[in-house]
């Protein structure tokens, strides 16, 4: 509880880190949303009006799915996604290096600490994120073929969902665990400590560490859902405001999640 409280206060004292993450967030989501909006407009403006007969909508979906199988159609979509992923793969670890350094180094001015972190830790962070990505994707090797087999065998949507659920749960739990443990590996890297001992630390205290993560997650989920529901409900200008507010909340919660774990890590190590 203490770690959560102190982490929250600490987040308030990290305007530079929060600001940098916020700028990054806007920099990649604004073009992304523009792109998605253009695709959505295209689909919506072709959606057959009900007066033309119910089966036209069915045909439209069928045609749409067939069109997606066309290489010249899916390639730009997948290409855009991959380009986004690549940009994030470089920038996210670099910015988080700044956040971790900033949390670790309280005496240096915030901006200086942040930039020092980016300079000092970026490359190592990128490699660790790549390793983390490989670990995150590992269960897909089994989950995807199993899900496809289930998809082919299932006859009703309920059967498809029932078959997918255990695999989805496995992927979610595994991803959460890997991400949580990696936070401690990154702490060790930032504080020049042994990576394995940080892993051991997190393992030995898995219950409180998970507790902190779950508490932050619960708040994030509640806030996220509230904002999401509001942006769907108040489409129009209010949703633009929400669109701007939403990243601030999310970035704040993200830094809080790291800061709370960092407080716990420091408190136990001293």
């Amino acid at each position: 509880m203490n770690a959560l409280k102190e982490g929250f206060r600490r987040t308030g004292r990290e305007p530079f880190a929060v600001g940098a993450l916020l700028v990054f967030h806007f920099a990649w989501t604004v073009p992304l949303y523009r792109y998605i909006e253009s695709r959505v407009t295209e689909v919506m403006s072709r959606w057959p009006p009900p007066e033309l007969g119910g089966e036209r909508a069915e045909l439209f979906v069928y045609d749409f799915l067939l069109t997606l199988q066309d290489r010249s159609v899916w390639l730009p979509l997948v290409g855009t996604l991959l380009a986004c992923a690549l940009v994030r793969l470089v920038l996210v670890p670099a910015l988080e290096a700044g956040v971790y350094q900033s949390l670790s180094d309280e005496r240096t001015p915030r901006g200086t600490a942040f930039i020092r972190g980016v300079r000092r830790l970026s490359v190592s962070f990128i490699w660790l994120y790549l390793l983390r990505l490989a670990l995150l994707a590992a269960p897909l090797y089994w989950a995807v073929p199993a899900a496809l087999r289930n998809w082919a065998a299932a006859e009703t949507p309920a059967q498809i969902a029932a078959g997918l659920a255990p695999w989805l749960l496995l992927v979610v739990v595994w991803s959460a665990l890997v991400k949580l443990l990696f936070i401690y590996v990154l702490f060790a890297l930032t504080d020049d400590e042994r990576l394995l001992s940080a892993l051991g630390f997190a393992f030995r205290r898995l219950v409180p560490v998970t507790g902190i993560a779950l508490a932050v997650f619960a708040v994030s989920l509640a806030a996220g859902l509230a904002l999401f529901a509001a942006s769907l409900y108040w489409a129009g200008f209010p949703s633009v405001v929400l669109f701007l507010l939403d990243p601030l909340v999310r970035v704040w919660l993200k830094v809080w999640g790291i800061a709370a774990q960092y407080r716990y890590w420091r408190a136990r190590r001293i």
Partner: protein
Amino acid sequence: MPEPKRSRLPFLAPLALPLLLVLLLQVFAGPLFGQAAPAGKPAGEKPAPDAAEEQGKPKHAPLSRRVTEYHIRVRYDEKKRVLAGEQSVTWNHPGKKPVHDLYFYLYPNAFRSAETTFMKESGGRLRDDRAVPGGFGSMTVSSVKTLNGEDLTHRLSFVQPDDGNGEDRTVARLRLSQPVMPGESVTLLMRFEVRLPRVFARMGVAGDFLMAGQWYPKLAAYETAGTRGRREEGWNTHQYHGNSEFYGNFGTYSVTINVPESHIVAATGFQAKPAARGNGRKTYHFYAEDVHDFAWAASPHFQYAEEPFADRHVPGVKIKLYLDPRHAHLKDRYFRAARLALSRYGEWFGPYPYATLSIVVPPAAGRGAGGMEYPTLITAWAAESDRPGYELEQVVAHEIAHQYWYGIVASNEAEEAWLDEAFASYAEFRLLQAEYGLDGHLKREAVSLKNPAPLKLDAWKFTDHAQYAANVYTRGKLVLLTIEREIGTAAMRRVLKTYYERWKFGHPGTDDFRQVLEEVTGRSWQRFFDQFVYGKMTLDYEVADIRSRVVEKDGRPLREYTVRLVNHGGWLKPVPVLFKFGNGTVAEAYWADESKEKTFRLTTDSRLLWVAVDPDQHFLLENRLYNNVLLAEIDPAWKMRWTVLAGKLVETLLGWAI
């Protein structure tokens, strides 16, 4: 060839006339009383699959020009998976020029290695079936002799007329020691052996089921001048390809098949005498005439049933059903589908001229043998499910339709596959619609035509099997249905009846069909064929964009809309365009000319909601339905909602990864 029986009962002569009259009435006007009842054996009598068939006696006058005559003896060694055979084949020169070479198809060599043209083109996959690793097969011809005993074996060489692939041994040329002169014939005695592949792409072995299609050295087709627009006579030879099916001259077949005693054999034609047993083996003798190929299947597990059938459009045929035990309970469905197909096609196209029709239902492991046509023998889908849907009726309807277009009319499936496949698909669609109330999914089929190609195209020149199937089956069928929409069902029936009657046993080409169509309808179809048959056109009308501006008229502000339409496809006839307004009114206009782009201007005091081209979806060949409609404006709130929803999904996915 056995002689037909003559009457030896002269005292029955006074009864002959009334009997003949009753018979004629039966054939031409249907049964005298009530429903058409199958003639022949009473129900419940167990049929014998090995018995000889009375009604299958050779007919007096040949129905076709019999270019070939085969006498084949074959022994199936089930342990070695080998067919050992010998044949006497006579080729009756149908042309006017001396012929120095004969061409034989050794199609089992398509499965000889991964380097054959068929295996390279298909990648070891065909119609959802895969080649079994190591399941190769092949054919060797060990001896070719003339009737004088002259050995011509060394004169046999492999040729690759289509692609020059040296690894392909599916076509062999035999250089004769002396030419065959016009009107003359040549007879050769050949010994051959087929190492059977595991069932894949129509033929082979699956457990103790055997499908023998393209299993003997078969003469290629010799086309006389004028056939399918040909200027000079000559051979029409093609390798075994990933997509192509078959083409040959008509002739007679007398085939004895020796199998293990436990096996039941289904084959082209009729059984000439009862199966002879001895030494744990059984020998069948089949005879067929006026056919251009001979296929057979064998299995110890076949459950045999037969049903004689005749009605006003079917002179009389014995339907022979060879069921995999898994489908034993579906016997009646197979029979019903076959009866309906024979009856309807008899009515629509012309009477089925053969005495038998055999239907083989392969076991699940033999799925590659399923859904195939041979003269008087078809294979249904393999018995993979206990409760098949309408695909059971569809495949029977489709393959029986092939009896007409592949079997009797006998188009060239290598070069003009659509004349068979599209016509069979059309017949299947019409039959299932008329008898089972199935309307199919024509619109879905149309939108799936994303990669159109000309219909009259060598089968192996399509980019892949998907493109071949989508065009030759689906687009071809839609072309025929489009013609029918234009001229009406009655006229279409007259076209197909005339085409069948004129070209049965005649090997027509696409132009021959067009000429029949023009003759019956009394107008030119050249433009239509140039676009949709010889060309790869579909119809593709797009409402490209809608622009609006405010104009003032009589002091009132009005909206002026400019609607731009684009035609990306071919042209059939004027297309209707519908405009829907916010006040509930609609306006209709026609795009009547053949321009590629058209602009409509509307000035209105209401809001234009949407524009739809071909709003009733009348055009069957329209393959991009989504661009037929364009909304003038979309709800910004919903646009925002969908964008947020899709955006969150992408963010979550990317956020999960990094």
